[in-house]
């Protein structure tokens, strides 16, 4: 902004600021005299003069949290690593130096140690808990204090907490098994007179063999006395006393009403918390939930338990009854002891098992059967409904269904009464349909090698790149287009090496199948096959004059082999030298062609034919001027060898891993070495310019002949491109070289587009998974991608500057829309007239902004859409705003139809249902919300991710919603059965984007780990595949 404009803005701001709100508009009309920009500027500042923004108006930070104990010793415990943290302190894995065993060490707030009575109390509690010797209670070994820090040493359990296990509703048999074990542990503790007071999923461990252990007995009580200490201790420091005073021991969401009210506690408090635990395991939701602490407590104290069917439809009635009894608000109405509850849980467990009276069993089975499949009465009769439920049945239900069906059949034959016949009829039909199982097959779209890529070579004109790998493939790439031109499978074993002839007309590939194949670059055909080898060929190289071809073979396990020189064109042996070799390595001609050097340690002067001094290493390369050689060895040491003066300089431990690759840039200015990472060196000074981290080991490095790119090949089959000037990852040949933020299926279902932070869009053939084109040119990281309805064009949004629109047939940029700020999403209207992004809607013909969301949604404050979606009929545009609202615009008038603001969240993604009537949104808080649009209102929450959702999508048949997020999951939700999700795929990093294929059979995902994954749905009936 120009300073005079700024001064003017300020001047008008203050003048208007002094006025009443009602008078401001009129004043601004005059003061800004039709300068709408100026007016907007002043108005937006005035609007923000009184709005509270927490980052500005609250203290910028507060100190809490952990500090570094790793490597330190507390008493005789050496801390190894932090394995978790809780409300009271951190838990570390430590080594007991005295007894030589691993322990879990829990630290407690130092403040406890500052009062004698607290220490005594803690010791008493811990001693009592330590006396509890029960398989379902974590054994406490020791309590102690080092300096200012009190700690408890206990049994180290390898496993996970119940919280980590939960996620979504658990199978009923697992719920029962876990709750019986927790109840047994609690019963033993209660018997010994110890309450837990803080039963919650974080305090239950499940070890690797499935045994359950309760953590932290008696610890919760230590929380109470902390409160008054704050006053005396920290007078100089601001403490929010109001909040501190209201702290109740226990964890909101799990505490009993009497705990919330601060009443004296007894065993029935633990029973209540156990009830909450069971409820959450069975339904995936907490019985008394809420957004805030106050809300939770209010819910707990005032609201009745909601029917189970609100959360999950298939909780067996007996289990419902047990849970409901544990959750009575009045403790006199609960189980009076854990033992009582335990015996009912055991009984339920038995009943779902084997031993039962015959008649009772058949009846119960039928009841149970219905309860598993369809508590909902509607499901009993109309088969379409049953089918509907069934399609979303999980494997567990399918199997149990079959099992029960057979049991019913057996009993039906014995007692073929009329009622049984009816039961039999219904169950047969139902089970037949109900056991349709669904599985999802995962494919990672990766067009190239399938195993480690051993070596690459550029054609001298930089146009082509040939890569060879452990999958026995030779792949020729169009380097500029980053697409695969041809794949040859003529070698039968691992291909080790490739080199281009200096004129670029030929290239040769060497393989462990004991052959070298020479290829014609222009025709992409075989020219010659050299097969007179007696061992694996591990290296191949053309001489600088193009007249000779050198090969290295390894002929025996003792690493004896030969270096052979062949005459190019005639392909006969010129000479052969016996050498020692290695598993892999290089054969290198000096640039003047006078010397030949094998990385295993042999070198020859070709003018005299005599052996000369050399060094041995894993890999080596000679500088273009022939003066220097760089070598890397198995210890990660780099050695520079002066070929003129025969001196060497070492750079020890340059890499931490075994070194495998060295390359010089064409001008000799840079060099690169690779191990499990890549170092870029300045050759003159031999200083490290940059270090590139790679996900797997580096096999080979090559600079492009124009010096712009460094290509690295890796153990995970990827071939990555690094921009030498920018020193950044610029892409990959096999797929993406950066996180994939957007994916879309073309409306005709034939293509998949993926947009990545590597600044490219890849178009994939949806059927074959082949990479069709890489659309390059965007200047910033890409955030989203969308197809036009005729599948002719694809649009990509980027963090800054522009939206690009590409013509698919030509793989060319068609036009671009310049942006004033970044775009985080993009959508094209079904009539292809409009393009919506984060801040505006644009006319697709001229790129003109026709609507500014900030103006449109002015009433709701700023408006930045992280997700936009047109309704399939083109009537509506929905926006998911980071400012925490969902907005709906009428595309005929561009008027705001509706806005709904939700406090304390940020919306990230939105998707329209195929029938134009509903929306689904994804948000920061992890909720998958379902909305109706006429009027815009929330229908319900389908379920939750444990962290931010990045993307949501409605299935084409509108029955299912897919969501993906930072908790490394893709979840599928049945919109008719909220709370129940299934996860698909294996993810170790966040999933950033999901989309359904138009036929609903496939889902594509874009992932943080750079992969694009395709999931195909398979349905089977009684083990037979349906599609």
């Amino acid at each position, binding site marked *: 902004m120009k300073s005079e404009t700024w001064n003017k803005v300020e001047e008008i701001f203050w003048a208007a600021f002094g006025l009443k709100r009602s008078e401001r508009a009129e004043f601004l009309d005059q003061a800004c005299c039709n300068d709408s920009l100026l007016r907007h500027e002043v108005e937006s*500042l005035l609007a923000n003069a009184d709005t509270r923004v927490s*980052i500005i108006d609250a*203290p910028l930070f507060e100190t809490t*949290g*952990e500090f570094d104990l790793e490597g330190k010793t507390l008493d005789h415990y050496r801390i190894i690593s*932090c394995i978790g943290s809780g409300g009271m302190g951190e838990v570390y894995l430590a080594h007991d130096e005295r007894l030589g065993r691993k322990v879990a060490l829990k630290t407690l707030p130092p403040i406890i140690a500052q009062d004698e009575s607290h220490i005594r109390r803690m010791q008493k509690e811990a001693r009592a808990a330590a006396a509890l010797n029960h398989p379902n209670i974590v054994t406490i070994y020791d309590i102690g204090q080092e300096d200012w820090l009190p700690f408890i040493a206990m049994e180290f359990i390898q496993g996970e907490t119940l919280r980590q296990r939960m996620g979504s509703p658990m199978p009923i048999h697992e719920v029962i098994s876990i709750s019986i074990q927790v109840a047994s542990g609690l019963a033993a503790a209660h018997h010994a007179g110890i309450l837990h007071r803080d039963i919650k999923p974080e305090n239950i461990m499940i070890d690797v063999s499935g045994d359950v252990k309760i953590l932290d007995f008696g610890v919760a009580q230590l929380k109470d006395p902390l409160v008054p200490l704050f006053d005396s201790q920290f007078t100089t420091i601001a403490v929010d006393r109001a909040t501190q005073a209201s702290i109740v021991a226990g964890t909101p969401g799990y505490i009993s009403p009497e705990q919330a009210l601060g009443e004296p506690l007894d065993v029935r408090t633990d029973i209540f918390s156990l009830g909450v635990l069971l409820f959450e395991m069975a339904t995936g939701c907490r019985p008394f939930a809420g957004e805030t602490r106050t809300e939770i407590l209010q819910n707990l104290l005032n609201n009745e338990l909601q029917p189970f069917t609100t959360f999950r439809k298939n909780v067996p009635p007996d289990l419902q009854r047990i849970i409901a009894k544990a959750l009575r608000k009045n403790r006199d109405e609960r189980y009076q002891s854990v033992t009582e509850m335990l015996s009912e849980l055991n009984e339920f467990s038995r009943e779902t098992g084997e031993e039962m009276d015959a008649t009772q069993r058949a009846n119960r089975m039928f009841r149970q059967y219905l309860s598993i499949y369809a508590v909902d009465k509607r499901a009993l009769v109309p088969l379409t409904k049953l089918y509907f439920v069934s399609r979303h049945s999980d494997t567990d239900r399918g199997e149990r269904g079959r099992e029960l069906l057979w049991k019913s059949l057996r009993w039906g034959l014995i007692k073929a009464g009329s009622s049984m016949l009816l039961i039999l009829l219904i169950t047969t039909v139902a089970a037949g349909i109900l056991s349709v199982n669904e599985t999802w097959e995962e494919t990672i779209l990766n067009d190239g090698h399938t195993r480690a890529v051993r070596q690459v070579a550029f054609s001298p004109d930089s146009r082509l790149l040939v890569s060879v790998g452990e999958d026995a493939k030779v792949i020729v790439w169009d380097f500029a287009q980053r697409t695969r031109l041809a794949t040859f499978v003529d070698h039968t074993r691992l291909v080790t090496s490739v080199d281009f002839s200096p004129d670029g007309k030929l290239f040769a590939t060497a393989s462990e199948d004991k052959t070298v194949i020479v290829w014609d670059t222009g025709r992409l055909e075989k020219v010659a096959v050299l097969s007179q080898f007696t061992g694996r060929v591990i290296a191949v190289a053309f001489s600088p004059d193009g007249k000779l071809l050198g090969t290295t073979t390894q002929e025996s396990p003792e690493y004896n082999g030969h270096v052979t020189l062949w005459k190019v064109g005639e392909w006969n042996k010129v000479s052969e030298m016996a050498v020692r070799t290695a598993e892999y390595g290089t054969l290198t001609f000096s640039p003047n062609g006078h010397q030949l050097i094998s990385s295993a340690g042999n070198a020859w002067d070709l003018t005299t034919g005599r052996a000369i001094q050399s060094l041995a290493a894993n890999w080596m390369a000679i500088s273009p001027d022939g003066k220097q050689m760089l070598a890397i060895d198995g210890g990660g040491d780099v050695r520079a060898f002066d070929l003129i003066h025969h001196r060497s300089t070492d750079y020890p431990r340059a890499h931490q891993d075994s070194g495998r690759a060295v390359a010089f840039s064409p001008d000799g200015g840079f060099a690169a070495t690779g191990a499990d990472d890549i170092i870029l060196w300045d050759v003159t000074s031999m200083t490290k310019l940059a270090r590139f981290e790679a996900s797997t080991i580096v096999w080979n490095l090559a600079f492009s002949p124009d010096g712009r790119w460094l290509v690295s090949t890796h153990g995970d089959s990827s071939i990555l491109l690094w921009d030498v000037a920018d020193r950044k990852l610029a892409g990959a040949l096999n797929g993406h070289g950066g996180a994939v933020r957007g994916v879309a299926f073309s409306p005709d279902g034939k293509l998949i587009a993926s947009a990545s932070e590597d600044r490219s869009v890849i178009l994939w053939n949806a059927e074959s998974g082949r990479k069709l084109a890489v659309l390059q040119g965007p200047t910033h990281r890409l955030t989203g991608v969308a197809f036009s309805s005729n599948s002719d064009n694809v649009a990509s949004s980027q963090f800054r500057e522009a939206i690009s629109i590409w013509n698919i047939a030509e793989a060319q940029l068609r036009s671009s829309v310049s942006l004033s700020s*970044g775009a985080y999403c993009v959508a094209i209207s079904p009539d292809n007239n409009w393009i919506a992004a984060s801040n505006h809607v644009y006319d697709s013909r001229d790129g003109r902004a026709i609507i500014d969301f900030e103006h449109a949604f002015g009433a709701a404050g700023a408006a930045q859409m992280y997700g936009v979606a047109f309704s399939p009929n083109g009537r509506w545009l929905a926006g998911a705003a*980071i400012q925490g609202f969902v907005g709906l615009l009428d595309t005929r008038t561009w008027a705001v139809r509706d806005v709904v603001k939700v406090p304390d969240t940020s919306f990230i993604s939105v998707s329209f249902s195929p029938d134009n009537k509903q929306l689904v949104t994804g948000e920061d808080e992890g909720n998958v919300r379902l909305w109706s649009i006429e009027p815009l209102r929330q229908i319900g929450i389908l379920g939750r991710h444990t962290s931010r959702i990045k993307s949501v999508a409605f299935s084409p048949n509108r029955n299912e919603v897919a969501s993906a997020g930072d908790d490394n999951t893709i979840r599928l939700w049945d919109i008719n059965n909220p709370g129940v999700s299934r996860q698909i795929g294996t993810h170790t990093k966040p999933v950033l984007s999901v989309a359904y294929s138009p036929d609903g059979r496939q889902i594509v995902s874009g992932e943080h780990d750079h992969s694009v994954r395709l999931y195909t749905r398979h349905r089977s009936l009684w083990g037979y595949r349906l599609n």
Partner: protein
Amino acid sequence: MSPSKEVAQLLIDWSSGDKCALDELFPMVLGELRRRAHNALRRERSNHTLQTTALVHETYIKLAGYKNPSCRERGHFFAIAAKAMRFVLVEHARKLHRAKRDGIKVQLELAPVAQLQTNGSARSILGLDEALKTLARFDPLKAQVAEMKLFSGSSNREVAEALGLSLNQATRYWQFARAYLAREIRKRPYEI
């Protein structure tokens, strides 16, 4: 010269126009702020709030060594401390943000800075820093006012003294800068 005397002298030098004094002061203040943040955590580790203001005040008492300085000296100190505090917090937020973006669990080795539980996420601190930078481009004085208010918790009077403004000016500058920052932060996107 004892450290405290040195700081007091440097402050006087700086207020009387010796720009080089700032180059010496800044690293001292930065170091002390970092150290104190760390120590505070070791001793007072629990769930209470240690605010920016408190930390800066404590640092001042430690460094300048006397309790009744003129408002002008305190103001000058706070101007420097605000810069240092901003540095510490932004540095911290960057680390967290990067770690989060790369999907890495924040390691304990990021300590001690990583222990600061900032109000709002890393991204909002970075957003605030960005907005301040933009403001500084066309109105450096207001950006400085805002920096002092936000990062050292200075009173309007201290701001006025340090920057040679009237109390009324300081108040109004802050009000205006605040409106600007609020607007920018609310409309500024963050990278997800």
